[in-house]
């Protein structure tokens, strides 16, 4: 006696590769996300209306300036920016950043109570012919109408 077996064909689309695709997406986003964390000093930023978004964080160098005259450039701290040693270090670091990426915009995050003498010192350091970091953005929070 011959037994005929019925061949069952599955009509469902296999979804077994779906988790792989989703995980791949997840890993992609995790890899491309840039998270820069610095020990930034506490500052009280000013508010402004005519502000523009910084194009890309990758092309930005962040400078913090506190009301006490404490300056931080990305991850370097300068306790006395008016001192020649600190100025030389600041210029050297900024020069290195500019040579690596000439499109760098300096985002200055200064405290409301900072004095303009400190800001002018930073201007002078950025304008230095050795450094030539001329694109500057005064970081501010958006003021509501």
């Amino acid at each position, binding site marked *: 006696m011959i*037994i005929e077996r019925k061949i069952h064909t599955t009509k469902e689309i296999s*979804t*077994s590769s*779906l*988790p792989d695709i*989703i*995980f791949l*997406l*997840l890993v992609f*986003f*995790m890899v491309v*996300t840039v998270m820069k964390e610095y020990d930034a000093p506490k500052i009280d930023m*000013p508010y*402004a*209306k*005519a*502000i*523009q*978004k*910084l194009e890309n*964080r990758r092309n*930005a160098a962040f400078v913090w*300036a506190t009301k006490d005259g404490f300056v931080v450039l990305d991850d370097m701290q300068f306790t006395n920016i008016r001192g020649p040693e600190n100025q030389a270090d600041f210029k050297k670091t900024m020069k290195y950043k500019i040579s690596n990426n000439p499109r760098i*915009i300096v*985002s*200055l995050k*200064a*405290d*409301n*109570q*900072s*004095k*303009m*003498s400190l*800001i*002018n010192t930073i*201007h002078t350091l*950025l*304008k*230095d*012919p050795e450094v*030539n970091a*001329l*694109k*500057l*953005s*005064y*970081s*501010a*929070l*958006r*003021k509501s109408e």
Partner: protein
Amino acid sequence: MIKFKRRPSVEINSSSMADIAFLLLIFFLVTTTISMDQGLEIVLPSEGNEMKVNPNNITVISINESGKVLFNGRLVKEKSLDQNNLYQLKSLVENELANNEKMIFSVQVTPKTKYSDYIKVLDYVKAAKATKISIAN
């Protein structure tokens, strides 16, 4: 009659894996905060690049250490800097630009001027669509 033995399937059902992965993806998408940096953009002049400018094309805006603003030597309303809207300065800049579109606005500060006052003035000058802004120490 021949009976076929039914073999239990040994595979783990992975259909819910996609849901778990999606859930993780959505969780990270929702919880990630992308801090948008924004600010007032200016371009500093390179050193040794000074040029002579016709005095008629310069408007001087000075800010003193107590936050008082002088527009071409005239005092802009004393209270105005403390208020959120400094319309007077904005309209003064707009008027100057309407008269002379080549006008350069020179913002002058003292070493003790507060940064917040400087940003307020710069904000109104920029809000009035002035493009030529000079910063004097």
